[in-house]
């Protein structure tokens, strides 16, 4: 059984204009549609990569899965049980199973807590174990992420380097013994030379401790190194999903093609093709129906603007793209 299942999940925000604009200029209330009609499954022991540019809804998706932001429509199932409508105490209990690793290790650790307290905070807040049990578990997990407990327990975050901080962040997520870990761009603030170490650590721990992982990044080359499956999002819509190598080597959707084509390559001889897409990414405010990539897509026709062809949910592991005009796209176009 799938660990997580998202069924037609939406998250919309309302923007109410001020009184004057409402009354005098008749500005209507507008909607930001951060995530729309998202269907997704997460299997046990897999690493699902989510790729996309800023504003594509990848962070909102994480927040919804982690139980930090409720979807405005649709259902989220965890081990077959519906969890999106949980509230209060039950929601707090549920959060234990889905832990997050955050983007910015300088921001995600409370500057007034010592390392030990940071890691112990989750178990303490939920009273998972007696204080002594928490102590040994914190020591274990710190050791597992490569920080010697005796040396680090009493330190404050500002006394640590970026890499050490991110390890503390990982420890404080894993000490909860979650079944799913969501990593939201955990490397983007770290130096290149130590990124691989964190990536290795995460991959190793996932195998050792049997959690599945959602790894979110805008950097496809990093995703290429950790994910088993890859989901590509654009302005709140899922546009392509499939096994990693297939998506990266043989992308189907025009957006995925452009995205992969735009990734810089550390090779001075390589000459990148000029992507054929135009325009800028918009904000998902009152988006028209249909494919949101259509305005920038060289292949778009009337059908694209009218309806959005969602991903097929019947076979979630299959490589597929949400595009009407897959047949019209030829390989020499990228």
């Amino acid at each position: 059984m799938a660990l997580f299942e998202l069924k037609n999940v939406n998250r919309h925000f309302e923007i109410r204009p001020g009184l004057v604009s409402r009354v005098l200029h008749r500005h209507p209330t507008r909607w930001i549609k951060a995530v729309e009609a998202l269907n997704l499954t997460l299997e046990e022991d897999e690493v699902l990569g989510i790729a996309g540019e800023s504003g594509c809804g990848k962070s909102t998706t994480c927040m919804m899965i982690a139980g930090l932001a409720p979807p405005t429509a649709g259902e989220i199932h965890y081990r077959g049980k519906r969890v999106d409508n949980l509230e209060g105490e039950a929601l707090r209990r549920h959060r234990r199973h889905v832990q997050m690793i955050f983007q910015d290790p300088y921001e995600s650790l409370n500057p007034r807590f010592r390392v030990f307290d940071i890691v112990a905070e989750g178990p303490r807040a939920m009273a998972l174990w007696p204080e002594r049990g928490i102590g040994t578990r914190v020591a274990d997990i710190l050791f597992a992420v490569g920080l010697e407990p005796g040396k680090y327990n009493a330190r404050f975050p500002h006394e640590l380097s970026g890499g050490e901080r991110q390890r503390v962040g990982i420890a404080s997520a894993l000490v909860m013994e979650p079944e799913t870990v969501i990593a939201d761009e955990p490397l983007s603030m770290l130096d290149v030379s130590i990124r691989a170490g964190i990536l290795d650590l995460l991959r190793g721990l996932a195998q050792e401790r049997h959690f599945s992982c959602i790894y979110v990044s805008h950097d496809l080359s990093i995703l290429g190194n950790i994910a088993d499956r890859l989901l590509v999002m654009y302005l709140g819509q899922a546009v392509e999903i499939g096994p990693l190598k297939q998506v990266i080597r043989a992308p189907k959707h025009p957006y995925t093609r452009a995205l992969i084509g735009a990734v810089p390559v550390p090779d001075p001889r390589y000459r990148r093709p000029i992507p054929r897409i135009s325009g800028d990414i918009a904000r998902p405010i009152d988006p028209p129906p249909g494919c949101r990539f259509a305005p920038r897509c060289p292949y778009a026709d009337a059908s694209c603007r009218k309806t959005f062809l969602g991903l097929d949910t019947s076979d979630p592991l299959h490589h597929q793209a949400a595009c009407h005009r897959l047949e019209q796209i030829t390989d020499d176009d990228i």
Partner: protein
Amino acid sequence: MFDYILRRLGYTLITLFAVATILFVIFRMLPGDPTLQVISPAMDEAVQTRMKEAFGLNDPMWKQYLIYLKNLVTLEWGRSFVSAQRVTDILAYRFWNTLLLMAAGMCLTLVLGIGMGIVMAWRRNGPLDVCGTVVGLVFQATPPFITGLLLLIVLSYRLGIFPTGGMYPAGQRPDGLIDLLLMPGFWQRIVLPTITVGAYYIATPMLIMRDSMLEVLGSDFIELAKAKGLAPSTVMFRHAARNALLGVVTLAGIMVGFAVGGQVVVESLFSWPGMGQLMVESAASHDYPVAQGTFLMLAILVIGLNFLTDVAYSYLDPRIKISATGIG
């Protein structure tokens, strides 16, 4: 921006209404005869009955409240127990005197304080900065009645340079503002109160300006302004000071609230015929209608100045538009 200003205006009116209500409640909670607030026991019987009817003092509380609100709006603020003058007439004269002194003090404070703040930040840790900070903090810690008394004792009593109080020499009642401003006696008398008010409040804009200048000077756009090859003075005034001013305006509201308090003390000390002095005198002599009216008028002054602060802020910061519509 209009949305923002309109909304602040709405809040201002709500605040005004709430302050008036609080005042009503406080006066009704008064132990003893509740009619005391509008009717002096010294009045003759017939007048007392007439007043009772006019103010609805025999009616139930909610009706009294409505009458109270109606009277406020129609400027029926009652008559002084002492002089039997209409409260609104007394206030109309006193209001401008207060505003005059306040404006003088505020101008001195803001111009000098902001200027000093800029220079202090510019020459950070220089002698001016260090002395300015210490002197500013000491001024901030000195209540105005002590500064005022000190000035009176030294400059008036000992050296006799300035008159001890009042607004103009006795027996020379000016007619109109121009006449007043042409009077040398007025200028002699406004100096000490202005310095007293100014000394107490100068530290606030000065130190805030200094601190927010230092904060702004550390930001990236200042570095870029320097890299653009702009003259240091341009960087200081055009880029840093304008942004730092936002910090001062934010806290100006707080300052205004306290400034009215300082005003009361200074007016009493220098016998300045303003609302502050009136407040103290009427409260001391239990002249309730006047005390109530004065309090309301002072509240209106504070609330109005707070509103002006908000407007100034929205003018200075173009980003305000966003937060008003709730997008940012």
